[in-house]
């Protein structure tokens, strides 16, 4: 009986690995591209968690607002025209900037209205969570009202053709852009947090807010800056996501849940952990297509979240509040 089950399992996996063999490289490339988006969103969760010890539930709407802002910009810039090469570069840079700025603005607004009054009152943690959910729900439904309830494809600012082959996988322009933008931003943020004076104050607040304030760190401003930085990356990620899948008011929900999983997977509060967690989750999720029905992909990443929380709640690199973040 047991033998039959084991051999059944074995043949299930070998047969699926056979299909995987053919699809492996394309799935890996796709997974890495998605993984970068997850990483960028995960940064927002992890930084806010670092300084406030709370999950910013409204981060999914930060992501969505970045997507919408750059969508409207791109629509206005590209129109029905066919952008030339240098125009494409300009448009992508502008898209990333405007998406990021919109995300940062919304994140700062949420911090100001939903979190700061509670911080003044030293409210219990449950109050933060509830007010964050309220903010998320408010923005989500406001976007639905203002922009409509269908998915809008973004007019492509560049021609998305396969640039080169990686093993047997065609690597498209969009994948390369996602990779370059993601790497640049994550690297830039890492340098900013570990080297600059601003980063030092963020780390100080994450380590011990009270002592930091005694040392002359302006806590309110530091927290606001943290939200701005996390929001910028989240909004830019919204743009990259929108380029691939279009924008819709619900677009933030699933990616944000997964980015949170990525943040926990890598070790919450840890910037490099967010990168590793995001890439790992993107790849795992992408490869799992070979094993489970596509409709259940979200179940896989949810399973990863529960598993990590149960087995190693500190994540791969460990929670490192205040050290790396």
């Amino acid at each position: 009986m047991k033998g039959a089950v084991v051999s059944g399992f074995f043949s299930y996996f070998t047969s699926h690995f056979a299909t995987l063999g053919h699809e492996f490289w394309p799935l890996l490339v796709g997974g890495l591209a998605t993984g970068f988006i997850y990483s960028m969103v995960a940064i927002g969760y992890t930084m806010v968690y670092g300084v406030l010890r709370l999950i910013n539930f409204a981060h999914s709407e930060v992501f969505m607002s970045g997507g919408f802002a750059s969508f409207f910009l791109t629509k206005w810039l590209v129109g029905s025209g066919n952008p030339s090469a240098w125009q494409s570069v300009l448009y992508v840079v502008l898209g990333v900037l405007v998406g990021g700025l919109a995300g940062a603005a919304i994140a700062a607004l949420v911090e100001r209205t939903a979190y700061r009054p509670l911080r003044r009152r030293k409210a219990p943690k449950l109050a933060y969570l509830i007010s964050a959910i309220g903010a998320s729900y408010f923005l989500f439904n406001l976007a639905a009202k203002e922009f409509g309830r269908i998915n809008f494809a973004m007019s492509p600012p560049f021609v998305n053709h396969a640039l080169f082959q990686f093993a047997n996988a065609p690597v498209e322009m969009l994948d390369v852009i996602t990779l370059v933008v993601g790497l640049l931003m994550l690297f830039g943020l890492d340098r900013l947090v570990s080297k600059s004076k601003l980063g030092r104050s963020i780390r100080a607040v994450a380590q011990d807010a009270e002592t930091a304030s005694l040392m002359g760190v302006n806590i309110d401003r530091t927290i606001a800056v943290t939200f701005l930085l996390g929001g910028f990356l989240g909004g830019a990620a919204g743009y990259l996501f929108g380029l691939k899948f279009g924008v819709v008011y619900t677009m933030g929900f699933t990616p944000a849940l997964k980015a949170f999983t990525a943040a926990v997977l890598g070790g919450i509060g840890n910037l490099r952990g967010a990168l590793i967690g995001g890439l790992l989750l993107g790849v795992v999720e992408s490869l799992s297509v070979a094993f489970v029905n596509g409709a259940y992909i979200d179940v896989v990443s949810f399973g990863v979240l529960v598993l990590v929380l149960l087995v190693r709640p500190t994540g791969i690199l460990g929670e490192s509040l205040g050290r790396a973040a």
Partner: protein
Amino acid sequence: MKYLNAPALKRWGSLVALYAIVTVMTGPPGNQSSPTLGFTSSFSESVSFFGLFPAPRGVFFAALFVIIGGGLALYRRTALKSVLSGARTAVAPRYAALTQRKATRGVFYAIVLLVAIVLPHVVTDPFWQSAMVSQIAIYVLLAIGLNVVVGFAGLLDLGFVAFYAIGAYTTAWVTGALPAAAPFHHAINPFWAIPIAIVFVMIAGVVLGLPTLRLRGDYLAIVTLGFGEIVTIFLNNLYGVTGGSTGSNQIPHFSIHLGPLKYLWGLDPVPYYYLTLGFVVVFLVIFSALEHSRVGRSWVAIREDEIAAESVGINPLKYKVIAFAIGAASAGFAGVITGGQSLFINPATFTLSFSINILVLVIFGGMGSIIGVVVGSLIIQTVSMYLIHTPPAGFQNSDLYIYLGALLIAMMIFRPAGIWPSKRRRREIQYVATGEELDQINGTSDVNGETV
């Protein structure tokens, strides 16, 4: 009030921000081809107050907020402030003495129950009769269930709708209304689904709770949120078992065949109203008994300080799982009623929005306050149904969700204990007012607002 002591710039700044938000929030919708349309016409479209003062929305609301701001400024500067607060301190003890007398409370509950019983004969509008069951009574039931989890035990459950869905689908399953083979040979009455569904959801609560309730509060929130989504994904995709996105539409009505006693619940909502009302009362009695029992006190202890509770011999995991299962039971039961009444169910009903809607009822009424949650649910659901039934100009049903989201933030900022706080919370607030250390109430909080 802190607002009144803030500098002038801040006071007027927040009023202007609130003005912009309210004007856009209540304004007409935009669309994708002109994304700014919703915002601009929120200010330019003309509006009137019951036919009076017709003006563009921007001007109208500006006038409204100038009046509000002026009123607040007047209140701040004049003797009105001391008069009002003097009146409050004079009335408060008498009010408290009145509400705390057992006899008064008994009379109050009796009157409420009587009104509830007579209500369907007074309100004969078919919309309201059906809304009283499916949008008010059921929501009260769900809210008092979620209150056990969020209010008593302090666990933020964002996947509450999953238990409701499991209850409804169990009903469909045992009555043979699903593609999955029914467990009994002949179609049975949904009454039999009640114990089965309650057992099922309690098992689901324990299965979800045992691993996840060890987690910290914020992790629990996101895991339960994921759980709610997972249940919906399965309901949508397991065509052979759940009927996929079309769900089921053949659930039979409730009926009683007990010897000479025969009764069939039909399409008329009123009998369902009484059925639900009866069970609401049962659940209310059970939950208020629980609140003051050993279990209820353990919940409070865990909610206030888990480590301290553990050190006096309370097993936090055990009591959290109990809270989860009991809260789930009422949701499962509500699912049975919904299934038996509406006859058809599909996954589109069981969304995250639903969970959040129930959460709003609990937060608005007052976490941990049973009577508050009941009153809060009645108010919010009645107002929502009123807005849906007789929409003011330019109102769309989906606007409700925007208001509910804003309400969550507003409650957390201005009145975190709800409109009708539980006695325990009221005492806590009084301690704060008399200058007791806040830390003694919320646990020692550091600057991060984290309870250590």
